[in-house]
Protein backbone atom coordinates (compact mmCIF):
# COMPACT_ATOMS: atom_id res chain seq x y z
CA UNK A 1 0.00 0.00 0.00
CA UNK A 2 2.89 2.22 0.48
CA UNK A 3 4.50 0.75 -2.52
CA UNK A 4 4.73 3.80 -4.67
CA UNK A 5 5.33 6.28 -2.05
CA UNK A 6 9.00 5.81 -2.00
CA UNK A 7 11.86 6.27 -4.23
CA UNK A 8 13.36 3.10 -5.40
CA UNK A 9 15.79 1.44 -3.07
CA UNK A 10 18.78 2.77 -4.86
CA UNK A 11 17.53 6.20 -4.12
CA UNK A 12 17.57 7.27 -7.69
CA UNK A 13 13.87 7.61 -8.08
CA UNK A 14 14.47 6.35 -11.53
CA UNK A 15 11.22 7.03 -13.28
CA UNK A 16 11.04 10.53 -12.05
CA UNK A 17 14.65 11.16 -12.82
CA UNK A 18 14.22 10.16 -16.41
CA UNK A 19 11.08 12.20 -16.72
CA UNK A 20 12.82 15.20 -15.30
CA UNK A 21 15.50 14.95 -17.85
CA UNK A 22 13.08 14.65 -20.68
CA UNK A 23 11.01 17.50 -19.38
CA UNK A 24 14.09 19.61 -19.21
CA UNK A 25 14.52 18.98 -22.86
CA UNK A 26 11.06 20.16 -23.54
CA UNK A 27 9.09 16.95 -23.36
CA UNK A 28 5.66 17.98 -22.28
CA UNK A 29 4.41 14.48 -21.69
CA UNK A 30 7.24 13.94 -19.29
CA UNK A 31 6.34 17.08 -17.48
CA UNK A 32 2.75 15.95 -17.25
CA UNK A 33 3.95 12.72 -15.75
CA UNK A 34 5.92 14.61 -13.18
CA UNK A 35 2.92 16.66 -12.42
CA UNK A 36 0.71 13.70 -11.88
CA UNK A 37 3.27 11.97 -9.76
CA UNK A 38 4.26 14.78 -7.55
CA UNK A 39 1.22 16.94 -7.37
CA UNK A 40 -0.63 14.86 -4.82
CA UNK A 41 2.40 14.79 -2.62
CA UNK A 42 3.06 18.45 -2.79
CA UNK A 43 -0.58 18.98 -2.15
CA UNK A 44 -0.48 16.83 0.92
CA UNK A 45 2.49 18.70 2.22
CA UNK A 46 1.22 22.16 1.46
CA UNK A 47 -2.13 21.31 2.89
CA UNK A 48 -0.41 20.79 6.14
CA UNK A 49 0.90 24.31 5.90
CA UNK A 50 -1.92 26.35 4.54
CA UNK A 51 -4.98 24.19 4.87
CA UNK A 52 -7.71 24.60 2.35
CA UNK A 53 -5.84 26.97 0.13
CA UNK A 54 -3.38 24.27 -0.70
CA UNK A 55 -4.74 23.71 -4.19
CA UNK A 56 -4.15 27.29 -5.16
CA UNK A 57 -0.78 27.46 -3.55
CA UNK A 58 0.43 24.30 -5.18
CA UNK A 59 -0.87 25.50 -8.51
CA UNK A 60 1.29 28.57 -8.10
CA UNK A 61 4.19 26.39 -7.24
CA UNK A 62 3.70 24.40 -10.40
CA UNK A 63 3.81 27.48 -12.51
CA UNK A 64 7.16 28.22 -11.03
CA UNK A 65 8.30 24.66 -11.43
CA UNK A 66 7.27 24.72 -15.06
CA UNK A 67 9.12 27.94 -15.61
CA UNK A 68 12.30 26.96 -13.83
CA UNK A 69 12.60 23.30 -14.49
CA UNK A 70 15.43 24.00 -16.88
CA UNK A 71 17.50 25.28 -14.02
CA UNK A 72 17.14 22.24 -11.91
CA UNK A 73 20.14 20.00 -11.49
CA UNK A 74 19.92 16.64 -9.92
CA UNK A 75 18.15 13.33 -10.04
CA UNK A 76 14.61 12.35 -9.37
CA UNK A 77 15.17 12.34 -5.68
CA UNK A 78 16.58 15.81 -5.83
CA UNK A 79 13.66 16.88 -7.92
CA UNK A 80 11.31 16.02 -5.13
CA UNK A 81 13.29 18.20 -2.84
CA UNK A 82 13.48 20.99 -5.33
CA UNK A 83 9.77 21.03 -5.98
CA UNK A 84 9.04 20.77 -2.29
CA UNK A 85 11.22 23.78 -1.68
CA UNK A 86 9.34 25.78 -4.24
CA UNK A 87 6.02 24.68 -2.87
CA UNK A 88 7.11 25.57 0.60
CA UNK A 89 8.13 29.03 -0.41
CA UNK A 90 4.84 29.61 -2.07
CA UNK A 91 3.08 28.34 1.00
CA UNK A 92 5.03 30.59 3.28
CA UNK A 93 4.33 33.54 1.01
CA UNK A 94 0.73 32.66 1.21
CA UNK A 95 0.82 32.52 4.95
CA UNK A 96 2.54 35.83 5.10
CA UNK A 97 -0.09 37.37 2.92
CA UNK A 98 -2.79 36.36 5.28
CA UNK A 99 -0.82 36.19 8.39
CA UNK A 100 -3.69 36.05 10.76
CA UNK A 101 -5.11 32.75 9.87
CA UNK A 102 -5.52 30.26 12.62
CA UNK A 103 -4.54 26.90 11.42
CA UNK A 104 -3.73 24.17 13.80
CA UNK A 105 -6.45 24.91 16.25
CA UNK A 106 -9.14 24.39 13.74
CA UNK A 107 -7.66 21.25 12.44
CA UNK A 108 -7.03 19.87 15.80
CA UNK A 109 -10.60 20.38 16.68
CA UNK A 110 -11.70 18.50 13.64
CA UNK A 111 -9.36 15.75 14.40
CA UNK A 112 -10.50 15.22 17.85
CA UNK A 113 -13.93 14.69 16.48
CA UNK A 114 -12.85 12.00 14.16
CA UNK A 115 -13.03 8.97 16.34
CA UNK A 116 -16.54 9.43 17.50
CA UNK A 117 -17.88 10.04 14.05
CA UNK A 118 -16.15 7.05 12.69
CA UNK A 119 -16.00 4.29 15.09
CA UNK A 120 -19.61 3.41 14.83
CA UNK A 121 -19.28 2.40 11.28
CA UNK A 122 -15.68 1.44 11.02
CA UNK A 123 -12.71 0.40 12.94
CA UNK A 124 -11.53 3.90 13.32
CA UNK A 125 -7.87 3.71 12.68
CA UNK A 126 -7.95 0.81 10.38
CA UNK A 127 -9.79 2.89 7.92
CA UNK A 128 -8.19 6.21 8.34
CA UNK A 129 -8.55 7.96 5.08
CA UNK A 130 -5.69 9.77 3.53
CA UNK A 131 -7.35 13.04 4.33
CA UNK A 132 -7.79 12.15 7.94
CA UNK A 133 -4.29 10.93 8.23
CA UNK A 134 -2.93 14.07 6.67
CA UNK A 135 -5.04 16.15 8.94
CA UNK A 136 -3.68 14.38 11.94
CA UNK A 137 -0.16 14.98 10.85
CA UNK A 138 -0.89 18.55 9.94
CA UNK A 139 -2.18 19.20 13.41
CA UNK A 140 1.23 18.63 14.88
CA UNK A 141 3.31 21.62 15.81
CA UNK A 142 4.48 23.04 12.60
CA UNK A 143 8.09 22.01 12.62
CA UNK A 144 7.10 18.48 13.42
CA UNK A 145 4.32 18.46 10.89
CA UNK A 146 6.56 19.71 8.17
CA UNK A 147 9.27 17.24 8.94
CA UNK A 148 6.88 14.32 8.95
CA UNK A 149 5.06 15.46 5.84
CA UNK A 150 8.23 15.95 3.89
CA UNK A 151 9.48 12.56 4.85
CA UNK A 152 6.33 10.58 4.59
CA UNK A 153 4.23 12.36 2.05
CA UNK A 154 6.71 13.99 -0.25
CA UNK A 155 9.06 11.08 0.20
CA UNK A 156 12.25 12.94 0.97
CA UNK A 157 15.07 11.49 2.93
CA UNK A 158 16.32 13.18 6.04
CA UNK A 159 19.00 15.36 4.54
CA UNK A 160 16.78 16.51 1.72
CA UNK A 161 14.00 17.34 4.10
CA UNK A 162 16.48 19.32 6.12
CA UNK A 163 17.56 21.20 3.09
CA UNK A 164 14.03 22.05 2.17
CA UNK A 165 13.46 23.34 5.64
CA UNK A 166 16.76 25.10 5.83
CA UNK A 167 17.65 23.30 9.01
CA UNK A 168 20.19 20.90 10.26
CA UNK A 169 19.44 17.27 9.51
CA UNK A 170 19.65 16.52 13.17
CA UNK A 171 17.06 19.10 14.03
CA UNK A 172 14.72 17.78 11.42
CA UNK A 173 15.25 14.24 12.53
CA UNK A 174 14.38 15.19 16.02
CA UNK A 175 11.34 17.12 14.95
CA UNK A 176 10.01 14.25 12.93
CA UNK A 177 10.67 11.86 15.73
CA UNK A 178 8.81 14.01 18.18
CA UNK A 179 6.02 14.31 15.71
CA UNK A 180 5.72 10.58 15.42
CA UNK A 181 5.74 10.12 19.13
CA UNK A 182 3.05 12.64 19.50
CA UNK A 183 1.00 11.01 16.83
CA UNK A 184 1.47 7.69 18.47
CA UNK A 185 0.24 9.13 21.70
CA UNK A 186 -2.78 10.61 20.08
CA UNK A 187 -3.55 7.38 18.38
CA UNK A 188 -3.29 5.57 21.62
CA UNK A 189 -5.66 7.95 23.22
CA UNK A 190 -8.10 7.60 20.42
CA UNK A 191 -7.82 3.94 20.46
CA UNK A 192 -8.32 3.90 24.12
CA UNK A 193 -11.53 5.79 23.72
CA UNK A 194 -12.89 3.96 20.77
CA UNK A 195 -11.57 0.70 22.05
CA UNK A 196 -13.67 0.75 25.13
CA UNK A 197 -16.65 1.61 23.01
CA UNK A 198 -15.93 -1.12 20.63
CA UNK A 199 -15.24 -3.83 23.06
CA UNK A 200 -18.84 -4.76 23.41
CA UNK A 201 -19.55 -5.09 19.76
CA UNK A 202 -16.33 -6.19 18.30
CA UNK A 203 -14.72 -9.50 18.54
CA UNK A 204 -11.31 -8.17 17.84
CA UNK A 205 -9.14 -8.05 20.87
CA UNK A 206 -9.83 -4.80 22.59
CA UNK A 207 -6.91 -2.56 23.06
CA UNK A 208 -7.44 -1.84 26.66
CA UNK A 209 -5.48 0.49 28.75
CA UNK A 210 -4.21 -2.34 30.86
CA UNK A 211 -2.93 -4.08 27.88
CA UNK A 212 -1.18 -1.03 26.74
CA UNK A 213 0.28 -0.35 30.07
Amino acid at each position, binding site marked *: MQGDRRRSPDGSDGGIGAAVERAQHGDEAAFALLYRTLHPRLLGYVHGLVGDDAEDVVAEAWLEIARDIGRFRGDGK*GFRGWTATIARHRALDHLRRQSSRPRATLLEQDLLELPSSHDTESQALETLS*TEEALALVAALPRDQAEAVLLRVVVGLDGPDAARVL*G*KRPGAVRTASYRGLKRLARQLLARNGVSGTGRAAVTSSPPRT*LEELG
Partner: protein
Amino acid sequence: MTDNREAESRESARRRPGRLGRRRAEELLDGSGSWPRPEAAEGADDVAPLARLLAAAAEPPAGSTAGSEARQEKALAAFRAAREAGDHAETVRRQDDWSRRRADAKAPKSRWPQPGRLLPGGRSARAVLGTVVAAMALCGVAVAAGTGVLSVPPGLVVPGAGAPGLPTAPTGIVTSVPSGPYSHSTPGSGGAPTADGDPREAATRGSEALCRAYERAEGAGHVPDVDTLVRLAHLAGDDETVSAYCERLGAKPSEAGNPKAGKDEAGPDGKSERDQAGETENGKPGPEDSGTPAPQNTTRGSTGNGQGPGGNGQGTGRGQGSGGGQGADGTGQDSDGAEPDEPDDTGSGSATPDETGAPDDSGTDGNDGSDSGTSPDEPDPSPSGTPPAS
Protein backbone atom coordinates in the same frame (compact mmCIF):
# COMPACT_ATOMS: atom_id res chain seq x y z
CA MET B 1 -14.12 15.02 22.80
CA THR B 2 -12.32 17.29 25.05
CA ASP B 3 -11.61 14.25 27.09
CA ASN B 4 -9.28 13.31 24.47
CA ARG B 5 -6.66 15.60 25.65
CA GLU B 6 -7.07 14.44 29.14
CA ALA B 7 -7.07 10.93 28.01
CA GLU B 8 -3.94 11.60 26.17
CA SER B 9 -2.16 13.04 29.10
CA ARG B 10 -3.42 10.30 31.33
CA GLU B 11 -2.12 7.86 28.89
CA SER B 12 1.21 9.40 28.61
CA ALA B 13 1.46 9.63 32.32
CA ARG B 14 0.77 5.99 32.65
CA ARG B 15 2.93 4.99 29.88
CA ARG B 16 5.11 6.80 27.51
CA PRO B 17 5.01 5.49 24.03
CA GLY B 18 8.49 4.41 24.51
CA ARG B 19 8.32 1.64 22.09
CA LEU B 20 8.69 3.99 19.28
CA GLY B 21 12.40 4.31 19.31
CA ARG B 22 14.36 6.56 17.10
CA ARG B 23 15.36 3.78 14.86
CA ARG B 24 11.86 2.61 14.44
CA ALA B 25 10.72 6.13 13.79
CA GLU B 26 13.34 6.53 11.16
CA GLU B 27 12.18 3.37 9.49
CA LEU B 28 8.66 4.57 9.47
CA LEU B 29 9.62 7.89 8.03
CA ASP B 30 11.74 6.22 5.51
CA GLY B 31 9.21 3.75 4.42
CA SER B 32 12.12 1.44 4.02
CA GLY B 33 11.72 -0.33 7.27
CA SER B 34 9.52 -3.25 7.72
CA TRP B 35 6.04 -2.04 7.90
CA PRO B 36 3.91 -3.99 10.17
CA ARG B 37 2.09 -6.81 8.58
CA PRO B 38 -1.58 -6.79 9.25
CA GLU B 39 -1.34 -9.51 11.85
CA ALA B 40 1.46 -7.80 13.57
CA ALA B 41 -0.52 -4.66 13.47
CA GLU B 42 -2.67 -5.88 16.23
CA GLY B 43 0.31 -6.14 18.44
CA ALA B 44 0.13 -4.18 21.57
CA ASP B 45 2.67 -1.62 20.60
CA ASP B 46 1.90 1.79 19.41
CA VAL B 47 3.87 1.56 16.25
CA ALA B 48 1.35 -0.34 14.24
CA PRO B 49 -1.41 2.22 14.31
CA LEU B 50 1.11 4.87 13.61
CA ALA B 51 2.41 2.96 10.66
CA ARG B 52 -1.10 2.68 9.34
CA LEU B 53 -1.62 6.33 9.74
CA LEU B 54 1.54 7.17 7.89
CA ALA B 55 0.70 4.78 5.16
CA ALA B 56 -2.66 6.40 4.79
CA ALA B 57 -1.10 9.81 4.70
CA ALA B 58 1.29 8.73 2.03
CA GLU B 59 -1.40 7.27 -0.09
CA PRO B 60 -2.12 9.53 -2.99
CA PRO B 61 -5.56 10.92 -2.45
CA ALA B 62 -8.11 9.22 -4.56
CA GLY B 63 -9.98 11.03 -7.20
CA SER B 64 -9.44 14.42 -8.58
CA THR B 65 -11.43 17.46 -7.92
CA ALA B 66 -13.12 19.42 -10.58
CA GLY B 67 -10.48 22.03 -10.78
CA SER B 68 -7.59 19.70 -10.91
CA GLU B 69 -7.71 19.12 -14.61
CA ALA B 70 -7.73 22.79 -15.24
CA ARG B 71 -4.85 23.29 -12.88
CA GLN B 72 -2.80 20.69 -14.57
CA GLU B 73 -3.56 22.26 -17.88
CA LYS B 74 -2.37 25.56 -16.57
CA ALA B 75 0.86 24.07 -15.39
CA LEU B 76 1.39 22.46 -18.75
CA ALA B 77 0.70 25.72 -20.49
CA ALA B 78 3.25 27.40 -18.30
CA PHE B 79 5.67 24.67 -19.19
CA ARG B 80 5.14 25.25 -22.89
CA ALA B 81 5.43 28.96 -22.52
CA ALA B 82 8.68 28.65 -20.69
CA ARG B 83 9.98 26.22 -23.23
CA GLU B 84 9.18 28.56 -26.02
CA ALA B 85 10.65 31.49 -24.23
CA GLY B 86 13.83 29.55 -23.83
CA ASP B 87 13.63 29.82 -20.11
CA HIS B 88 14.53 26.24 -19.76
CA ALA B 89 18.10 26.91 -20.53
CA GLU B 90 18.55 29.38 -17.79
CA THR B 91 21.41 29.40 -15.46
CA VAL B 92 21.39 27.27 -12.41
CA ARG B 93 21.01 29.03 -9.16
CA ARG B 94 22.27 27.58 -6.00
CA GLN B 95 18.88 26.46 -4.90
CA ASP B 96 18.40 24.63 -8.14
CA ASP B 97 21.32 22.36 -7.73
CA TRP B 98 20.30 19.20 -5.98
CA SER B 99 22.90 17.01 -7.46
CA ARG B 100 24.82 15.75 -4.56
CA ARG B 101 28.14 14.84 -5.88
CA ARG B 102 28.33 17.63 -8.25
CA ALA B 103 26.94 19.97 -5.78
CA ASP B 104 29.63 19.17 -3.35
CA ALA B 105 32.38 19.43 -5.82
CA LYS B 106 31.16 22.39 -7.70
CA ALA B 107 28.62 24.22 -5.75
CA PRO B 108 28.98 23.17 -2.20
CA LYS B 109 26.87 25.95 -1.01
CA SER B 110 23.86 24.44 -2.45
CA ARG B 111 23.76 21.95 0.28
CA TRP B 112 22.77 24.50 2.76
CA PRO B 113 20.54 26.72 0.88
CA GLN B 114 19.42 29.96 1.94
CA PRO B 115 17.95 31.19 5.02
CA GLY B 116 20.06 29.89 7.74
CA ARG B 117 23.41 29.99 6.21
CA LEU B 118 24.25 27.73 9.00
CA LEU B 119 27.11 25.56 9.57
CA PRO B 120 26.18 21.98 9.62
CA GLY B 121 26.33 22.49 13.29
CA GLY B 122 23.47 24.82 13.03
CA ARG B 123 25.39 27.81 14.13
CA SER B 124 26.32 30.59 11.95
CA ALA B 125 29.97 30.43 11.28
CA ARG B 126 30.31 34.09 11.76
CA ALA B 127 28.64 34.02 15.08
CA VAL B 128 30.74 31.17 16.28
CA LEU B 129 33.91 32.69 15.04
CA GLY B 130 33.04 35.97 16.54
CA THR B 131 32.66 34.32 19.86
CA VAL B 132 35.83 32.40 19.56
CA VAL B 133 37.78 35.41 18.54
CA ALA B 134 36.37 37.47 21.31
CA ALA B 135 37.25 34.77 23.76
CA MET B 136 40.73 34.56 22.46
CA ALA B 137 41.13 38.26 22.61
CA LEU B 138 40.04 38.28 26.19
CA CYS B 139 42.37 35.50 27.05
CA GLY B 140 45.15 37.32 25.46
CA VAL B 141 44.40 40.43 27.30
CA ALA B 142 44.19 38.69 30.56
CA VAL B 143 47.40 36.94 30.04
CA ALA B 144 49.13 40.00 28.88
CA ALA B 145 47.87 41.97 31.77
CA GLY B 146 48.79 39.34 34.25
CA THR B 147 52.17 38.44 33.12
CA GLY B 148 53.27 41.22 31.07
CA VAL B 149 54.90 38.48 29.21
CA LEU B 150 53.58 37.10 26.08
CA SER B 151 52.70 33.74 27.13
CA VAL B 152 49.98 33.55 24.63
CA PRO B 153 49.80 30.37 22.74
CA PRO B 154 51.49 30.77 19.47
CA GLY B 155 48.37 30.20 17.59
CA LEU B 156 46.87 33.23 19.06
CA VAL B 157 49.66 35.43 18.44
CA VAL B 158 49.63 37.46 15.45
CA PRO B 159 53.00 38.73 15.03
CA GLY B 160 51.73 42.10 14.59
CA ALA B 161 53.42 43.66 11.75
CA GLY B 162 54.30 40.62 9.97
CA ALA B 163 55.65 42.15 6.89
CA PRO B 164 58.16 44.79 7.59
CA GLY B 165 56.60 47.18 5.27
CA LEU B 166 53.41 47.04 7.15
CA PRO B 167 52.50 49.27 9.95
CA THR B 168 51.94 46.96 12.75
CA ALA B 169 50.70 49.19 15.38
CA PRO B 170 47.31 50.35 14.28
CA THR B 171 45.94 46.98 14.61
CA GLY B 172 45.09 47.42 18.18
CA ILE B 173 41.54 46.54 17.71
CA VAL B 174 41.46 44.94 21.00
CA THR B 175 41.75 48.02 22.99
CA SER B 176 43.05 46.72 26.13
CA VAL B 177 45.81 44.82 24.62
CA PRO B 178 49.05 46.49 25.23
CA SER B 179 50.09 46.52 21.74
CA GLY B 180 53.12 48.56 22.22
CA PRO B 181 55.65 46.24 23.64
CA TYR B 182 54.52 43.34 21.77
CA SER B 183 54.44 44.93 18.53
CA HIS B 184 57.93 45.86 19.16
CA SER B 185 58.99 42.44 19.63
CA THR B 186 56.95 41.35 16.75
CA PRO B 187 58.67 43.17 14.06
CA GLY B 188 61.26 40.57 14.04
CA SER B 189 58.71 38.26 12.76
CA GLY B 190 58.63 40.31 9.71
CA GLY B 191 60.90 37.70 8.52
CA ALA B 192 59.51 35.49 5.93
CA PRO B 193 57.98 32.26 7.01
CA THR B 194 60.65 30.12 5.76
CA ALA B 195 59.19 27.68 8.03
CA ASP B 196 56.33 27.40 5.69
CA GLY B 197 56.72 23.81 5.16
CA ASP B 198 56.41 22.97 8.72
CA PRO B 199 53.46 24.80 9.97
CA ARG B 200 51.61 24.20 6.85
CA GLU B 201 52.15 20.58 6.79
CA ALA B 202 51.17 20.47 10.32
CA ALA B 203 48.14 22.46 9.47
CA THR B 204 47.19 20.14 6.75
CA ARG B 205 47.60 17.20 8.90
CA GLY B 206 45.42 18.89 11.39
CA SER B 207 42.85 19.69 8.83
CA GLU B 208 42.79 16.15 7.67
CA ALA B 209 42.05 15.10 11.16
CA LEU B 210 39.35 17.69 11.32
CA CYS B 211 37.86 16.48 8.13
CA ARG B 212 37.89 12.97 9.38
CA ALA B 213 36.13 14.02 12.51
CA TYR B 214 33.67 16.02 10.50
CA GLU B 215 32.94 13.22 8.13
CA ARG B 216 32.65 10.74 10.89
CA ALA B 217 30.12 12.87 12.62
CA GLU B 218 28.20 13.52 9.47
CA GLY B 219 28.25 9.91 8.58
CA ALA B 220 26.88 9.00 11.93
CA GLY B 221 24.25 11.63 11.55
CA HIS B 222 25.64 13.72 14.35
CA VAL B 223 26.43 17.31 14.39
CA PRO B 224 30.14 17.75 14.38
CA ASP B 225 31.40 19.63 17.32
CA VAL B 226 31.74 23.33 17.16
CA ASP B 227 35.46 23.44 17.27
CA THR B 228 35.74 21.21 14.33
CA LEU B 229 33.24 23.18 12.42
CA VAL B 230 34.79 26.47 13.15
CA ARG B 231 38.17 25.32 12.14
CA LEU B 232 36.94 23.71 9.04
CA ALA B 233 34.99 26.75 8.12
CA HIS B 234 38.18 28.69 8.40
CA LEU B 235 40.07 26.27 6.36
CA ALA B 236 37.49 26.03 3.73
CA GLY B 237 37.07 29.75 3.71
CA ASP B 238 33.38 29.40 4.04
CA ASP B 239 31.08 27.43 6.14
CA GLU B 240 29.31 26.09 3.13
CA THR B 241 32.30 24.69 1.47
CA VAL B 242 33.38 22.52 4.28
CA SER B 243 32.44 19.24 2.77
CA ALA B 244 33.95 20.18 -0.53
CA TYR B 245 37.05 21.24 1.23
CA CYS B 246 37.32 17.95 2.98
CA GLU B 247 36.78 16.13 -0.21
CA ARG B 248 39.56 17.99 -1.85
CA LEU B 249 41.76 17.40 1.05
CA GLY B 250 41.05 13.75 0.97
CA ALA B 251 41.82 13.68 -2.69
CA LYS B 252 45.19 15.27 -2.44
CA PRO B 253 46.45 15.38 1.03
CA SER B 254 50.01 15.86 0.04
CA GLU B 255 49.18 19.18 -1.39
CA ALA B 256 49.82 20.63 1.93
CA GLY B 257 53.38 21.23 1.26
CA ASN B 258 52.40 23.47 -1.51
CA PRO B 259 50.66 26.30 0.09
CA LYS B 260 49.55 27.94 -3.02
CA ALA B 261 47.91 24.98 -4.45
CA GLY B 262 45.85 24.47 -1.45
CA LYS B 263 44.92 27.99 -1.37
CA ASP B 264 43.99 28.42 -4.86
CA GLU B 265 41.65 25.63 -4.74
CA ALA B 266 39.88 26.76 -1.76
CA GLY B 267 39.68 30.29 -2.80
CA PRO B 268 38.44 30.14 -6.30
CA ASP B 269 35.97 27.51 -5.64
CA GLY B 270 34.27 29.22 -2.97
CA LYS B 271 34.33 32.36 -4.83
CA SER B 272 33.06 31.23 -8.06
CA GLU B 273 30.27 29.54 -6.35
CA ARG B 274 29.41 32.58 -4.59
CA ASP B 275 29.49 34.59 -7.65
CA GLN B 276 27.34 32.21 -9.41
CA ALA B 277 24.86 32.33 -6.78
CA GLY B 278 25.27 35.99 -6.67
CA GLU B 279 25.72 35.73 -3.06
CA THR B 280 28.41 37.99 -2.27
CA GLU B 281 26.25 39.49 0.29
CA ASN B 282 27.79 37.59 3.03
CA GLY B 283 30.22 39.52 4.77
CA LYS B 284 32.38 36.58 4.23
CA PRO B 285 35.67 37.41 3.00
CA GLY B 286 35.86 35.95 -0.33
CA PRO B 287 38.90 34.28 -1.44
CA GLU B 288 41.79 36.47 -0.88
CA ASP B 289 42.31 37.70 -4.31
CA SER B 290 39.38 39.94 -4.28
CA GLY B 291 39.19 42.87 -2.11
CA THR B 292 38.47 40.53 0.66
CA PRO B 293 41.70 40.83 2.46
CA ALA B 294 40.39 43.69 4.38
CA PRO B 295 38.29 41.89 6.88
CA GLN B 296 40.81 39.27 7.44
CA ASN B 297 43.60 41.57 7.95
CA THR B 298 41.66 43.71 10.19
CA THR B 299 40.90 41.03 12.49
CA ARG B 300 44.26 39.81 12.37
CA GLY B 301 45.43 43.05 13.45
CA SER B 302 43.22 42.99 16.35
CA THR B 303 44.09 39.70 17.65
CA GLY B 304 47.60 39.78 16.84
CA ASN B 305 48.76 42.99 18.02
CA GLY B 306 48.69 42.87 21.56
CA GLN B 307 49.76 39.43 21.96
CA GLY B 308 51.95 38.50 19.24
CA PRO B 309 55.21 37.45 20.57
CA GLY B 310 57.74 38.80 18.37
CA GLY B 311 59.26 35.58 17.54
CA ASN B 312 56.36 33.78 16.13
CA GLY B 313 56.22 32.72 12.65
CA GLN B 314 54.27 34.96 10.56
CA GLY B 315 52.29 32.24 9.13
CA THR B 316 50.69 31.83 12.39
CA GLY B 317 49.91 35.36 12.73
CA ARG B 318 48.11 35.63 9.58
CA GLY B 319 46.20 32.63 10.10
CA GLN B 320 44.75 34.13 13.04
CA GLY B 321 43.99 37.20 11.38
CA SER B 322 41.78 35.61 8.94
CA GLY B 323 39.96 33.83 11.58
CA GLY B 324 39.20 37.01 13.21
CA GLY B 325 38.13 38.53 10.06
CA GLN B 326 35.51 36.04 9.55
CA GLY B 327 34.27 36.23 12.95
CA ALA B 328 34.31 39.85 12.34
CA ASP B 329 30.88 40.16 13.71
CA GLY B 330 32.52 40.92 16.87
CA THR B 331 31.76 44.51 16.67
CA GLY B 332 33.29 45.04 19.94
CA GLN B 333 36.63 44.69 18.49
CA ASP B 334 36.16 47.14 15.82
CA SER B 335 34.62 49.61 18.02
CA ASP B 336 37.58 49.54 20.22
CA GLY B 337 38.73 51.30 17.63
CA ALA B 338 42.07 51.51 16.66
CA GLU B 339 41.45 52.92 13.35
CA PRO B 340 39.92 50.14 11.48
CA ASP B 341 41.01 51.50 8.26
CA GLU B 342 44.53 51.28 9.06
CA PRO B 343 44.56 47.68 9.71
CA ASP B 344 42.76 47.13 6.55
CA ASP B 345 45.22 48.96 4.59
CA THR B 346 47.92 47.12 6.10
CA GLY B 347 46.21 44.06 5.32
CA SER B 348 45.77 44.85 1.77
CA GLY B 349 49.21 46.01 1.38
CA SER B 350 50.59 42.92 2.71
CA ALA B 351 47.86 41.05 1.17
CA THR B 352 49.75 40.04 -1.77
CA PRO B 353 52.30 38.08 0.01
CA ASP B 354 49.78 36.69 2.29
CA GLU B 355 47.56 35.79 -0.44
CA THR B 356 49.36 32.72 -1.07
CA GLY B 357 49.30 31.50 2.32
CA ALA B 358 46.05 32.87 3.22
CA PRO B 359 43.83 29.90 3.07
CA ASP B 360 46.34 27.72 4.62
CA ASP B 361 47.00 30.09 7.28
CA SER B 362 43.48 30.52 8.05
CA GLY B 363 43.37 26.89 8.43
CA THR B 364 45.93 27.16 11.00
CA ASP B 365 44.08 29.79 12.69
CA GLY B 366 41.03 27.92 12.79
CA ASN B 367 42.80 25.39 14.73
CA ASP B 368 44.55 27.71 16.91
CA GLY B 369 41.50 29.58 17.55
CA SER B 370 39.49 26.89 18.98
CA ASP B 371 41.86 25.55 21.42
CA SER B 372 44.77 27.62 21.26
CA GLY B 373 46.82 25.30 23.26
CA THR B 374 45.95 22.08 21.72
CA SER B 375 45.69 22.58 18.12
CA PRO B 376 47.74 20.13 16.30
CA ASP B 377 48.63 22.60 13.73
CA GLU B 378 50.17 24.95 15.94
CA PRO B 379 53.03 26.01 14.01
CA ASP B 380 55.98 26.21 16.17
CA PRO B 381 56.54 29.69 17.04
CA SER B 382 60.13 29.21 16.51
CA PRO B 383 59.97 28.78 12.84
CA SER B 384 59.40 32.43 12.66
CA GLY B 385 60.24 32.18 9.16
CA THR B 386 60.12 35.45 7.52
CA PRO B 387 57.52 35.84 4.93
CA PRO B 388 59.16 36.06 1.65
CA ALA B 389 56.48 38.34 0.65
CA SER B 390 57.77 41.11 2.66
